[in-house]
C-alpha cells in the first residue's frame, strides 16, 4: 500500500485554554515562518461544537487544534504526497506533529496552558480509496505501524482500536499504557 495523507492527532492532557487564544499564535507562525512548510492562513471554527477548532492552513499540511469527538488535540493533516518508505512517512509526519506540539507548549502567550500526551494518539488516513476503514486495511497496515510504534514507545505496551463506522476514514486510536512527553518522543525520532 502506498500510504499517503497520513494524519496524526496528539491529544492534549492539559487544556485550560479557549480556542480563540490559538488564533494570534497561528497568525504569528505565518508571520515568522516558523516551519519549513508553506503556511497560508488561519481558519476559525471555534463556533462549531466538536469541530476542527482553529486551523493553520498550509500547502503541504493543515495544522489544527482540533476538537473532534470533544477530544482536544493537535492534528497534523498531511495533504501533499510524500516520498519514501511507509516508515519514513510515518516518522516524518509524527516528527512534524510533535514539533508543532512542542512549539505550542513553549508558546509564551499560552503560559503552559496546553500540554500534550504523546502516548495518546489518533492515526487517520485521509483517503478512503487508498485506505478504506476496514479490518483488511488494518491487517495490511498493522506490521508497519507496530514497527513504527515500537520505535516510538519502545517496550511500553499500547492498544490499537479501529473506529467501527465504515463511513469514517481509516481511523485508529493508539493508547500507550503511560504518558509520553512530547520532547522525549522527539528525541527518539531524531
Amino acid at each position, binding site marked *: 500500500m502506498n500510504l499517503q*495523507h497520513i494524519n496524526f492527532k496528539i491529544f492534549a492532557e492539559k487544556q485550560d485554554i479557549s480556542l480563540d487564544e490559538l488564533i494570534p499564535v497561528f497568525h504569528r507562525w505565518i508571520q515568522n515562518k516558523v516551519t519549513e512548510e*508553506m503556511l*497560508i492562513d488561519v481558519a476559525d471554527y471555534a463556533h462549531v461544537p466538536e469541530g476542527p477548532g482553529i486551523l493553520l492552513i498550509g500547502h503541504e499540511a493543515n495544522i489544527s487544534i482540533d476538537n*473532534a469527538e470533544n477530544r482536544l488535540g493537535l492534528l497534523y493533516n498531511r495533504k501533499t504526497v510524500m516520498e519514501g518508505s511507509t516508515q519514513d512517512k510515518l516518522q516524518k509526519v509524527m516528527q512534524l506533529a510533535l514539533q508543532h506540539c512542542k512549539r505550542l507548549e513553549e508558546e509564551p502567550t499560552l503560559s503552559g496552558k496546553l500540554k500534550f500526551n504523546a502516548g495518546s494518539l489518533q492515526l487517520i488516513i*485521509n*483517503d478512503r480509496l*487508498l485506505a478504506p476503514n476496514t479490518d483488511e486495511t488494518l491487517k495490511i497496515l498493522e506490521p508497519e505501524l507496530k514497527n513504527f510504534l515500537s520505535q516510538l514507545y519502545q517496550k511500553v505496551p499500547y492498544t490499537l482500536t479501529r473506529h467501527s463506522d465504515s463511513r469514517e476514514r481509516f481511523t485508529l486510536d493508539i493508547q500507550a499504557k503511560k504518558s509520553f512527553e512530547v520532547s522525549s518522543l522527539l528525541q527518539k525520532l531524531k
Partner: protein
Amino acid sequence: MKASQKQWREKLQGQMSPAWAEEIDHFETEIELKKQGKLEDRIFAETRLRRGAYGQRYDNGQRHDGIQSQKLEYPSPLTKGPHTLWDAPGMQRIKIPYGGINAKQLEVMAELAEEYSDGIAHITTRQDFQLHFIHIEDTPNLMRRLAAVGITTREACGNSVRNLTGCPYAGICNTQAFDVSPYADACTFFLLGHPDAQDFGRKFKIAFSGCAEKACGLVNIHDMGFIAATKIENGKEKRGFKFYVGGGLGSVPQNAKLFDEFLPEEEMLAMSQAICRVFGRYGEKKDRGRARIKFLIKDWGIDKFKEEVLKERKLLKTDPRWTDFLEKTRKDFEKPLKGPSKLDLAAQSQEFQKWYNTNVYHQRQEGYKAVTVALPLGDITADQLRKLADIVRKYTHDTIRTTVEQNFVIRWITETDLFSLYQDLKNASLDTAVANTILDIVSCPGTDTCKLGISSSRGLAGELRNRLAEQSHLLDEAVKNLHIKVSGCFNSCGQHHISDLGFYGVSRKIAGYTVPHFQVILGGQWENNGGSYGLAVGAVPSKRIPDVVTRLTGRYVTDRQKDEGFKDFIQRIGKVEIKKTLEDLTQVPSHDADPSFYADWGDPREYTIGDIGVGECAGAVVSAVEFDLTAAERQAFEAQLLLEKGDFQNAGLQAYESMVRAARGLIKHTVRDVSDDAEAIVQDFKTRYYDTQIFYDPFAGGKFAQYLFLAHKKSGQGYTPESAHQLIEEAILFIEAAYSCYGRMTEKKAALPA
C-alpha cells in the same frame, strides 16, 4: 492533490449519467491542457467557474500578515485564471436545487469535506454547499463522487443559471397555493446546460415560492421568480404563477418587476426559455457591472422587455419537456415515513419545550412537524453530517432541505417522534434552540475566504451571536424575532438589504490607518419574499457594531408603539434620529488609545485593504480630501431624507451632487485648485482617475465611475422615485469607492521608498 486521484474515475464508472461523466472527463482534460499551457487563463477561469470551482482569498500569491505583505511561495508557477495561482486553495460550490438533499448525499458531502477540504461543509444563502481550501486538481474526482449520488456542480458559478432556490417548507406550508418543489425540480434540469442559457453576460438566479406573504423563496431578489397561484377557470382550479423578473441584490438592489399576474403552469418552462434567449441576446456582455438582467429591464422598461419575450416565446418550437413533468406535480413530491400522531407537549421537559418553541414548524398536514437544524454561521462538521444522515433515515423518507438562512429543515416528522429526534440532534450537537430568532445570524464568508471581502462578516456575526446568546434570557420578545444579516462587502451575499439590521463591510482611512467598518442598513424586509430593501444610515467601526445592535434594539423596546414592527419603527423615528442615536459610535479612538479598533473581528492582524503596507501618515492633503468625501457622504444621507419625504427630485439632485463632490475631493489629492463646475470636475475626474484606471476597484473595475458618468449625463432630466432611490444607492457606492481609491493611493505613497 490526492494520491488516489487517478483511481476514482475507474471506480465510479457506470455510477453516474453518461452525460455527467463525459462533462467531468472534459473538465479534467481542460485542466491537463491548462497545465500544458494550451488554454488561456481567461478561458480556463470561466470553464472552472461554470463547474463551481471558484477562487479564494490570497490566490494571487499575496497575503498581508499584519506587518507586511508576504509572497506566498506556491510550488507551481502555473495559473488557473488571471492573477490566480494553480496551487492556491480554492472554493468549490455545490448546487443543491431548492435545497433538496438526501442521506447518502449528506454522507458524500462529509467525505468530501474531510478528504479535500478542512472538515467543514458550509451552507450558503442560496441553499448551496461550499467547501473551501480545495486544490484545483482534486476537483474532477470531487465532482465524480457527487455525480455518483446525483449532484452536479455544473453552472454553480460563472455566467450561468445558478442554483435554483425554493421555499424549504414547500409542500408542508400553511400558506402555500401548492407545492412548488416539482416545478423547481423541472426548471432546474430543463435549464441545466440548456443551449439557450449558455451565452449570458452575467449570472442568472431563479427562485420558487409557494406564497407571497412569507419570506418563502425570496422571489423579489431574484432575476426570475415564481410565486404559486391558482384561479378557477370553467369551474376547475387552474395552477400557475405570479411571475416576476429583474429583481436582485448586489451592489444596487432592485425589486423584481411583475411580468405576468398569472402564468399558467404549462407555460413556466417555455417562458423561462424565452427569457433566457432574450437575456442572452440583448443583455450586456462587456460591462459586467451592468450585465444582470435587471439592467436590461431597467433600460428597456418592463413593457418593452415583456413584448420582446412574448415575441420570442411565439417563435419557440414546442418542446415536450415543457409539459411532460406536469404529471408529477399532481403526486406527492415527498412522503412521510410514518403515520401522523399527536404529541403531548405539556408532558415534555422545559428544555425540550424551549427548543420546540423556536425550532419546530407546524405542518399543514395534521400530526406532522418540520424541524429546523440551526447551524452556527452555516457550518457543519463531517461527523455531524453523518449523524444527520442517520437522523434523516430514521425519521423521514430520506429527505431534508437546506435553507437560505444557512440551516437545514427536516420535514414530515410524526409528532410522537419529536422528542427522540431532539435527543438524536442533541447527541450530534445540532439542537441549538435559536432558529428564526435574532441569534440565527446569516453571514457570507467575507474576509475569511472571499476575494472580495472588505470586513470580517463571519467574525462580526460570531461575535454578535455570542453576545446575544449571553443576553438571550433578557431579550425582549419584540427583539427575539428580528433578523440580522451580514455581508463582507457591498455585493450582498449575506443579503443585508432584506433584514431588520443589516451590515456590509467598508473601510475608512483614519490618521494614516485603515480601519474596518460596517455600513449599517436598517428597515429591510425579510417577509413578503424579501419585499423591500433597507437603506444605509452610515458607517460604524466594526468593533462598535455590537453596541449599535444593543442600542437600536434597546431603543426599539422602549420607544416602539403597540405591535409596531422594527421596519415601521425605523421609518417612524426617521434616519436623522437614528444617526443621532449612533453618532458617538462612529468615532474611532486613536491607534495609541485603542489599537483593537484597527484589527477586525477574529483576526489579530492590523487591518488592511490590500497587500501594500499601511502608511503611518497620509500627509496634510488628507484633511482636504477627506473633507470632501465626508461632505459627499453627508449629501448622500440628506438625499435619503429627501426621498423619505417624497421629494424625489431634490433627492436625486443631492445624490448626483454628492458624487460630484466625492470626485472633486479625489481630484484635490493631486491638484490644489479644483473647479466648482460639475462638467469640469467630471471631465477632470475621468482623465485623472478613470482613463488611468487609478479609480478602478480591484474586482469591480470601473463600474463605480460609470455611475458618476451616467448620473452626470442624465442630470437635468428629472428623477422618478425609483430612479432617485437607485441614484442614492449608486452614490453611496461611488463614495465608498472614492474612499477606497484614496486609501489605495495614500498607502502606495507611504510604501514608496523615500
